[in-house]
């Protein structure tokens, strides 16, 4: 089966890999590129566990055709830390018990980071709206909202 070469950047670094015919970006990132932070939850665009950014905008990677990201910039949760220093959101998620099983967490963090990049001081309602495409099943929305607000309000440890 013909595979298509795809050149893109992943968390700022140029990458190239071959995409299978009809392969979605989630599968491509995990199996061909080796970034395991986006997770498979539904393959239907419902759960948000596979959330990544494309040119800064959040997308559901399970519904993106892998070869369509040619020349574009992909961001995942693997790109959140600055070297050994975690993103303040990651610290806040730990401090606020915002990750129980951890499966929704990378997608949740990508959505939260996209929100704060666009709107550093969101209201609680804006936070809720920003994560409305990310499901958590361990009943963790309140801690997640609290963690994001803590960063927005400068209360999180840096």
């Amino acid at each position, binding site marked *: 089966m013909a595979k298509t070469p795809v050149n893109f950047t992943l968390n700022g670094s140029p990458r190239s890999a071959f995409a*299978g015919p*009809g392969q979605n970006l989630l599968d491509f990132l*995990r*199996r061909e590129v*080796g970034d*395991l*932070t*986006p*997770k*498979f*939850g*539904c*393959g*239907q665009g*419902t*759960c948000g*566990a596979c959330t990544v950014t494309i040119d800064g905008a959040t997308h559901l990677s399970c519904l993106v055709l892998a070869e369509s990201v040619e020349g574009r910039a992909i961001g*995942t*949760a*693997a790109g*959140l*830390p600055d070297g050994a220093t*975690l993103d303040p959101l*990651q*610290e806040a*998620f*730990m*401090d*606020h*018990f915002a*990750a129980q*099983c*951890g*499966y*929704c*967490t*990378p997608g949740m*963090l990508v959505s939260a980071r996209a929100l704060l990049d666009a709107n550093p001081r969101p209201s*609680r309602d804006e936070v809720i709206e920003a994560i409305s495409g990310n*499901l*958590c*099943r*361990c009943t963790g929305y*309140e*801690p997640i*909202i*609290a963690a994001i*607000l*803590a960063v927005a309000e400068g*209360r999180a440890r840096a």
Partner: protein
Amino acid sequence: MRDMTADGPMVEFRKDLFADERDDNLNEIGKPTRRQDAPGHVTGRSPFFDDHLFDGLLHLRCARSPHHHARIRRIDTSAAERMPGVVRVLTGRDVPVNLNTLLSLLDFGLDDEPLLSESKVAYMGEPVAAVIAETEAEARAAAAAVQVEWEVLPHVLDVEEAIKPGAPAVLDIYPNNKFVYHGKYDHQKLRYGDVDQALAQADHVVEGRYQMSPIEQAPMETCGAIAAPEQNDRYVCYTSTQALFFSLGTAAKVLSLPSSRLHFVGGTVGGGFGGKVDSIHEPLAILGAMLTGRPVKYAWDRAEEMQVGAPRGAERWYVTDGVMNDGRIVARKFTGYFDSGAYTRLSSYAIIKGVGHLPGPYTIPNVYADVYCVYTNRSPATAMRGFGITGVDFAIEAHMDKVAETVGMNPIELRILNAYRDGDMKAHRRLAKNCALIECAQVVAEKAGVTIAPELKSAASARDGGGPRAALPAQTATDTEGRVEGFAATSYANKSATSDAPQPPHAPPPATPARHPPPATPARHPPQAPAMTSGQRPPEGGSMPPSGGPPPAPQPPKKPARSGAMRFSSLSGFRRR
């Protein structure tokens, strides 16, 4: 004290309650502590089963029944085998021990469920073949090409329909679609006092019917496993299981392998809530790895998780209470039906747990329950958070409100009046201890701004219990209704050591006998008296309450009775030492 989530719900520590019984030297409670697994979670590095990459990974998907109930005339995999990318197609013939029940590891119940069904399907979505292919899409396409000749059978989807005479037999090995308890009864019994007599003497009789629907656990990560050949003639299996050693034991049994040849890796579970204990994926993935020599992944997609993933089973409860004008409940009678779906999985056990919980946290001198584990042609049910308890608690508490309405009492007052006090005898013949319902109800009343009677406002769990309230009923009415012959009665288990095929007396033998080590035969034991009347000796002196009468009035403060057994509260250091 507020909790650490700034805008989250309020958490209040009511240290005024049970203050004299608690060492108030908590070092961790009430303070934020980072969980050990948090760094892995927030960096996306926690290794879930699918986060292990293998070169040459194959994908397994099942061909499934489109019918609720059907006999399999023929399975033709030849077209599927010719599909692009297909490496191997498995059917039941490839499974070394193609019949299992999860709790067989505890010797509880007959083997009833094939890994891949060969002769019959009993629910929509039941797997009949497994296709292993190079890509998931190829496995999916080839699974659709498996041809099955079905003989569609009548089906039954309602618990009470399923136990009527003439209903379709879901499982041939259990008579009348009912699990057999203790080798003796087609239901789990609870007999405590004389409910019928008490109901006859009660001022009011309050009846209710309560129905719970199945609930899918819906974990974010679907169930799955990856297996691969490993060094030293072993197979490694990365799995989403919530019950690693349970899954290991089940895989060893189904694959007829010593467990020393299986290397299970798990513990990182993307949400489970009880839905990841059924140990279905591990044996199939390992079997695939054994037969192809390559790594094989078997994971459900979301639609499969929702359709064939075993949910919390539906329950139907009928509750009848006898209540006096002053609100004291003198009798409570349950008839319960757990919808086990097509196979047993864990429903049989859920009922044992549920019946131990009856009649809820209330001191009621006469309690009766008949609870049935019923087979229907719905998806098999399994564990989910608090299963066995959650459904009947809904029924009990809804019924408490109905009783309160009947006698014109505030529902909070009704609960305080009837609540367990420390030292009270419970219907399963253990003494209540560490009770706290009264205090909880008082706080609820306070928060809701509900005024309650002064004597109930000053009631306490640690007071007024025991004494006559610790006594067993003077007499317990027993019966042998639902007696089933032909099953071993030595324990919860139905199995004996013999190796003939099952021959329950009330049902035809399976049309196709199991090919593999068949389940043991129920041995014929002489009928025994129901175990329910045994119970312990009444722990302390005190007069027996008149059968059918209201519980004796609460006694003056008194030390809670002690039992000799190690108590959970002692282990946890929580309170009441």
